[in-house]
């Protein structure tokens, strides 16, 4: 687990750096040329109100008799900017991103249909995910779905739900979702750490992945050679881990808002929403391809085993390895040579059991 | 007149009726409470060697659970009316379950130890077999054995002549006369069919031990067979009829004790199930041979003169230890006779079954599975660093283990604890 631990620590350092780099006043517009304590503009009415409000808006510090200097700011613009970003581009483009994701899935379905096991089922199964891997996957999946739903309500509910159910009802819903989101958040952190530790072994990138990219991955006709996880799956893993790290750190900042500065909390919120939308969008694709989109994929994560033909078509290098191991221990016969190594991925030749190797 | 135990026409209804007749409050609580956690699978040797989820102990009860929930459970009427009750059990299912209930369960009760709800699967399987017999889906091998037992008095068809021959041989061997039909003796000895045919040396061993300990004992020519195939196939009728012969013989000879021999299910049948089946308690007491030997040893009447130096491990027969309650005795006796005893992991009430109890060894179609199941015993022994010989106190275990050891091409003798003790008796007249 040493490489794993190394990667984990690098990620943590990166996360910490990212955090430290957030300047305390990054969102505040500088307000040059004003001295603390001096009244802005000509309060006797010589200057326009616009000038007055612009100065207020720029975080002009007034005078207060209590020690908290922030109390001397009439309008803290950072908050307003944060709100503008969150309710503006993030909600807007984020919402569109999710719609685009759904549409692409639909498009992919119309184009490829349910991806069948081309050689049909062989009736022989090989183990794919261990019970530990499956348990962690589903634990994270359950918590992620709960968080995703409650989070989406918090982010988009105002635009999508409120017009439908009305303000009062939405108030209750949002209240509930906030409580639920805060409750399940910490459970997610444990899940994502466990997931990283258990899955990282099969998700390190290497030359096989480069080949997979060059050949067009899922978009390729036929099947491209791959290990236990193909490049797309590995990227999903690293997105989940990276996104999980961002979500966890920023989530904690929001759950304990008295520890970071207010500006950091605002940043945390924006990062959190952005990372979450990204992950949800990819998760939609992941869920689709793992269930409806591909015959024979889901059982690897439920029963833990997959059909030999499925394995050979989608993860030939790994499948061959597993079958060789089984062959040694169980006396099972050798699997056929994979044909996916040939140009263009001649899966038709490779799929049926016992077909002669090219 | 020859008896045939297999019902003429297979019938699912008969099974359902019999299931329901078997369910009392305790069985109902077992069927009700199972939370489907699956822990029990990990305890069952049949699941462990096959990893086939159908061999999960609680799943083996499924048809009986359904019959119960459909017809007998609280609210079953309401659920039937609403169409929420489980469907009626079919003959096809019962035939499918015949394998699970007879081939893949030795009624060893190891699953009960691990069950968080304390569900007694073994007892429930015993009850369920009554329904399987009524339905006509019990395996052929057990019906054949039952027919032979009812017609000849022994599931292997062993007659009095066989006993007489074995007694004569052993008398010649030991030079000690073997008492037969002695009225008023203290102890009546009966044997399991397997001992009678395969391990007759036990007769000689008993004569030597009883001579040293000065025990008054006898065989009966009217009943000498302890094996009760009725409790294995799961038929109270057959079991009671076989048991009745032994009880009658013991009471006719007016003995004080009946010795339950080195045979697992015989002990349960004689000691625990017996009085309930007969509807009365006996005029004598049932004592297991290990209990008697330990008693004699403690009284100083059984004197061990030396110790075996081989690496010996004791295989706990499920029906005698885990389900019989004779737990400390074999351990003390082993300690008295074995200088290099190997205590395997899980020894005692957690021990793995030999794989052939509960009628599995008389059921030919289960043979392959039974040999597979031996893999867990093999592993258990290997993990203990290997042994020179296994010692046990059940002739059926002994036979099953020997067959499996052959199958695995291992070299491992299996001994009887009684015989082992007899070998190390203090020499006559010797003081030390």
């Amino acid at each position, binding site marked *: 687990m040493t490489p794993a631990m190394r990667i984990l620590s690098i990620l943590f350092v990166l996360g910490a750096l990212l955090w430290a780099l957030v300047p305390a006043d990054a969102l505040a517009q500088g307000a040059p040329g004003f001295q603390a304590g001096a009244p802005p503009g000509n309060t006797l009415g010589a200057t326009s109100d616009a000038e007055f409000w612009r100065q207020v808006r720029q975080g002009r510090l007034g005078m207060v008799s209590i020690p908290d200097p922030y109390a001397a700011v009439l309008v803290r613009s950072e908050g307003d900017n944060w709100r503008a970003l969150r309710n503006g581009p993030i909600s807007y483009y984020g919402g569109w991103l999710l719609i685009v994701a759904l549409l692409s899935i639909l498009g992919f379905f119309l184009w490829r249909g349910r991806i069948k096991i081309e050689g049909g089922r062989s009736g022989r199964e090989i183990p794919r995910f261990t019970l530990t891997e499956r348990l962690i996957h589903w634990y994270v999946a359950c918590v992620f779905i709960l968080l995703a739903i409650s989070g989406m309500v918090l982010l988009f509910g105002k635009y999508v739900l409120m017009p439908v159910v009305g303000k009062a009802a939405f108030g209750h819903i949002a209240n509930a979702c906030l409580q639920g989101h805060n409750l399940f958040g910490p459970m997610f952190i444990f899940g994502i750490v466990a997931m990283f530790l258990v899955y990282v072994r099969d998700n390190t990138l290497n030359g096989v992945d480069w080949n997979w990219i060059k050949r067009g991955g899922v978009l390729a006709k036929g099947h491209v050679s791959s290990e236990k996880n193909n490049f797309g799956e590995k990227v999903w893993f690293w997105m989940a881990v990276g996104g999980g790290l961002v979500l966890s750190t920023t989530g904690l900042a929001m759950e304990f808002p008295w520890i970071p500065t207010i500006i950091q909390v605002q940043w945390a919120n924006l990062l959190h929403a952005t990372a979450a939308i990204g992950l949800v969008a990819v998760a939609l694709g992941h869920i689709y391809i793992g269930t409806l989109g591909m015959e024979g994929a889901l059982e690897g994560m439920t029963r833990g085993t997959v059909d030999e033909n499925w394995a050979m078509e989608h993860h030939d290098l790994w499948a061959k390895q597993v079958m060789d191991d089984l062959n040694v221990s169980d006396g099972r016969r050798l699997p056929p040579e994979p044909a996916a190594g040939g140009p263009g991925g001649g899966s038709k030749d490779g799929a049926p059991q016992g077909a002669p190797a090219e | 007149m020859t008896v045939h135990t297999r019902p003429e026409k297979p019938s699912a209804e008969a099974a359902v009726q019999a299931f329901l007749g078997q369910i009392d409050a305790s069985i109902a*609580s077992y069927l009700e409470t199972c939370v*489907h956690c699956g822990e029990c699978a990990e305890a069952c040797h049949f699941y462990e060697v096959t990893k086939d989820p159908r061999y999960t102990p609680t799943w083996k009860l499924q048809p009986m659970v359904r019959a119960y929930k459909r017809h007998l459970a*609280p609210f079953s009427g309401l659920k039937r009316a609403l169409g929420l009750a489980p469907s009626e059990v079919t003959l096809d299912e019962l035939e499918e379950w015949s394998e699970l209930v007879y081939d893949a369960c030795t009624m060893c009760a190891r699953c009960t130890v691990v069950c968080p709800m304390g569900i007694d699967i073994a007892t429930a399987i015993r009850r369920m077999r009554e329904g399987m017999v009524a339905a006509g889906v019990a395996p052929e091998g057990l019906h054949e054995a039952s027919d032979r037992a009812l017609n000849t008095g022994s599931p292997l068809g062993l007659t009095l002549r066989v006993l007489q021959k074995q007694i004569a041989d052993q008398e010649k061997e030991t030079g000690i006369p073997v008492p037969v039909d002695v009225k008023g003796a203290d102890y009546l000895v009966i044997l399991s069919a397997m001992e009678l045919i395969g391990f007759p040396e036990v007769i000689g061993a008993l004569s030597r031990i009883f001579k040293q300990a000065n025990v008054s004992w006898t065989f009966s020519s009217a009943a000498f067979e302890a094996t009760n195939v009725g409790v294995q196939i799961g038929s109270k009728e057959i079991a009671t009829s076989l048991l009745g012969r032994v009880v009658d013989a013991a009471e006719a000879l007016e003995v004080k004790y009946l010795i339950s021999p080195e045979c697992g299910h015989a002990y349960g049948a004689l000691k625990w199930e017996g009085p309930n089946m007969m509807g009365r308690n006996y005029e004598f007491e049932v004592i297991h041979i290990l209990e008697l030997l330990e008693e004699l040893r403690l009284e100083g009447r059984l004197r061990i003169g030396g110790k075996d130096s081989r690496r010996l491990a004791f295989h706990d027969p499920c029906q005698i230890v885990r389900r019989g309650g004779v737990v400390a005795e074999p351990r003390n006796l082993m300690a008295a006779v074995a200088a290099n005893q190997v205590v395997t992991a899980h020894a005692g009430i957690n021990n793995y079954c030999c794989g052939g109890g509960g009628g599995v060894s008389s059921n030919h179609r289960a043979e392959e599975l039974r040999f597979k199941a031996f893999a867990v015993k093999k592993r258990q022994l290997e993990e203990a660093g290997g042994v020179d010989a296994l010692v046990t106190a059940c002739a059926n275990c002994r036979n099953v283990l020997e067959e499996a050891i052959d199958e695995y091409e291992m070299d491992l003798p299996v001994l009887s604890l009684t015989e082992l003790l007899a070998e190390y008796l203090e020499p006559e007249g010797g003081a030390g």
Partner: protein
Amino acid sequence: MTFLEWTEGPLWYGASAIFVVGAAWRLFGILRLGRRVELSRPRASAASGALAAIVRHALPRGEYVERTWYHVVAGYLFHLGLFALLLFAAPHVAFIHDRLLGVGWTPLPRWAFIVVAELAFAGLILLWVRRICDPVMRQISDRDDHLGTWLTFIAMLTGCLALQETSPVLRGIHMLCVEVWMVYFPFSRLMHAFTWVLSRGFMGANYGRRGVSP
């Protein structure tokens, strides 16, 4: 009547009645089947065997821990968490005080409530995910297992969603979900909450009189 008044009034009384009467009837229905008199001579006491089994089967067995630790950990997280929430959540203590017993006790502080709730949810989720991905549990689970888990989950979840205690509607929803759960309870495997005493007890008595405590 408001929604909350409904759920804390008539619906609450109705559900409670079904829960109590149903569970009692179910237990009675099992016990009514009776046990035959044991005629064999016991080697030891059946009663102490029953007690021993009731205690011992609550504890993991050393020999099997390697295989069973998952259920032990998740099972205890969930069950202990659930009981802690049931008895010590501040609104529950108030409810018990005002509506049921007339006595109250010190509730959990809010932070402790949250920690306990998270552990309980984690336990329940872990138990359920094993049900969907362990071949043995997949084989033996039925509709009732899933429905029972889900209803329990929803009852707990709605409770936590009402955590801020500012919304009567959320409180009402929690009440309603709990009432559905209570009505489902006597007809389902959730009854194991009571029947475990019977199964462990009967088994323990059976073996106890034989002088062994498996």
